[in-house]
């Protein structure tokens, strides 16, 4: 929406509301409206999110809107939320661009009776009712490690691969991996870990060099997204498919061929469509007076966990069997 359209809406909406109140017969029941506020418009990720929300809207028979600023700026999100308060939206679900700067407008919305939730990104200091997210960074690392451990028969040398040495979320993945691998006495971690700066070429050549340094490496646990396909390519060029297993976190579109050939065993990911679909459903249920439950089994998603206002859905495992279901 461009600026003039927005101004026009801002003028017209109140005028229409007044006009309707004056002459229209009383509406039977106002249609429930849930508005999702994205970080920014135009990303493949947001498009996939929208699909999930759309599906939930159809199933629930409520109105679901998707609003996104043209730039990933919190100021533009605040303007959108102000507008939604004026429109007396039932619920706002937001992925804030700034966890702190969004706090006042969330308070304003809650005070005005609009229920506010966060999803995808949280604002922990705000009054939001709860936060819905995919499994956290440490848990994803644990899942990758557990899957790889199972794949290699719980024994042998494993190389952990990451991107930037200082990337906070990657370090959390690595932390999760270390925690999980510690459960398997048969597994030793090769030191030092590989840090490839998220560079495809370095990811590939460092994996090859690692296998020269330690020819008995049987598995790679990849914490950053360029690594799984790049290590898969390395394994392919060394004719070690099957002898060395690779698990990681990467986009299915970048890894499909290596999953198909067996060079990469699997990926741990969350499906943004499912995350948003579930968020719309659970927010709608809350508006009906139903609180989320810890440990509840949700069809097509698995067991969710709920504590301290944070609702987590488990990640999905992507292998050669189901990779074609994912189009991102």
């Amino acid at each position: 929406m461009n600026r003039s359209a927005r101004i026009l809406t801002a003028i017209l909406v109140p005028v229409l509301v007044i006009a309707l109140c004056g002459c229209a017969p009383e509406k039977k029941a106002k249609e429930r409206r849930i508005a999702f506020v994205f970080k920014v418009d135009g990303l493949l990720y947001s498009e996939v999110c929208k699909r999930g929300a759309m599906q939930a809207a159809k199933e629930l028979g409520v109105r679901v809107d998707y609003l996104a600023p043209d730039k990933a700026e919190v100021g533009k999100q605040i303007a959108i939320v102000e507008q939604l308060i004026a429109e007396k939206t039932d619920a706002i679900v937001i992925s804030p661009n700034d966890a702190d700067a969004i706090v006042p407008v969330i308070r304003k919305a809650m005070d005005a009776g609009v229920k506010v939730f966060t999803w995808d990104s949280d604002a922990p200091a705000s009054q939001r009712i709860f936060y819905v997210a995919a499994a956290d960074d440490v848990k994803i690392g644990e899942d990758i490690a557990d899957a790889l451990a199972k794949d290699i028969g719980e024994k042998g040398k494993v190389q952990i691969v990451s991107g930037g040495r200082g990337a906070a979320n990657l370090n959390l993945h690595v932390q999760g991996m270390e925690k999980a691998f510690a459960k398997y006495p048969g597994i030793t971690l090769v030191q030092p870990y590989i840090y490839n700066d998220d560079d495809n070429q370095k990811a590939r050549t460092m994996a090859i060099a690692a296998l020269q340094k330690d020819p008995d490496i049987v598995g790679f646990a990849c914490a950053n997204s360029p690594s799984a396909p790049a290590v898969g390519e390395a394994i392919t060029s060394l004719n070690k498919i099957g002898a060395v297993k690779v698990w990681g976190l990467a986009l299915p579109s970048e890894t499909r061929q290596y999953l198909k050939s067996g060079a990469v065993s699997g990926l741990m990911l969350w499906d943004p469509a499912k995350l948003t679909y579930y968020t719309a459903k659970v927010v709608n249920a809350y508006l009906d007076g139903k609180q989320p439950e810890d440990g509840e089994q949700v069809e097509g998603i698995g067991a969710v966990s709920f504590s301290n206002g944070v609702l987590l859905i488990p990640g999905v495992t992507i292998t050669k069997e189901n990779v074609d279901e994912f189009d991102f």
Partner: protein
Amino acid sequence: MLGAVEAQALLPLAARRELPALSLLVVAVTTLLIVNPAFRTPDNLAVLAQDAGILGIMACGQALVIITAGIDLSVGSMLALSACVAGSLMMRGMPWLVASLCGLVAGVVAGLVNGSLITYRRLPPILVTLATLLLYRGLTNVATGAAPYNILPETFKMIGKGTAPLVMMVAVGGLIALMVARGRLGRHILAVGGSPLAARLSGVPPDAVLRRVYAISGLCAGIAGLLLAAANGNAQWNLADGWELDVIAATVIGGVRLTGGEGSILGAMFGAMIIVVLRNALFLLGVPVEQYGLVTGGVIVLAALTEQWRRRVESRQ
């Protein structure tokens, strides 16, 4: 065929400027071959050849630019642009040779744009190529939607495998070195780098020379882009992000003078090999990644000091 003629043309140069880099390379490689079994495995040597070839080709183009007292920061971005143009066309079914050619054209055009911006109103090369570093990378990101082009023909992928990139570097570097030593453009490049004013007075058109030099740098980045996409089996917008520093370091280690006027293509290739060999050695020896910079930085300082000392000795003679 790189026969006796070229060897003769290069030999007097090699005896001076490239000597420190060559000695370091020979000592490092020999030592590693003896002490580190992982270093001498065929797979590791193949990776070294691949990496050194790709970096070396970019360093050849960069050396030419630096000899003209310029700099090209946009090489990594031009590499990704070329690779993505070629990769996207291949994925649309274009024969790989034609698609590769289109990728190279993209590199040359990107280089020409650099050269034109630099010669137009004499904008500083560091400013222009800093801008196009961001521009070309952004353009490639937006145009491809960050999508990977990773279903590439097997015959195309062969050009990036094993020692092919190193062979390509020798061919490209040899041609450029021959041009510098024997060709008219080579003489003009040295003249422009030495003194643009003197060059113009003696009838060398500096702007035309500069445009060609930046176009050659774009072409080199393009060739490297094709090899890198083939080696990775994937062309994507973020290829070679940040590699411009490695490329410039390679030329400096190879004895190219950053202020222009002097330098050697052969030295730039040695410099690229040194960077690749050192990084591989550090990895194989289990040195934590935080310490890599200490070694590469140290080598650059060493190269600068050696070059200064060499010049002092030379001027005394």
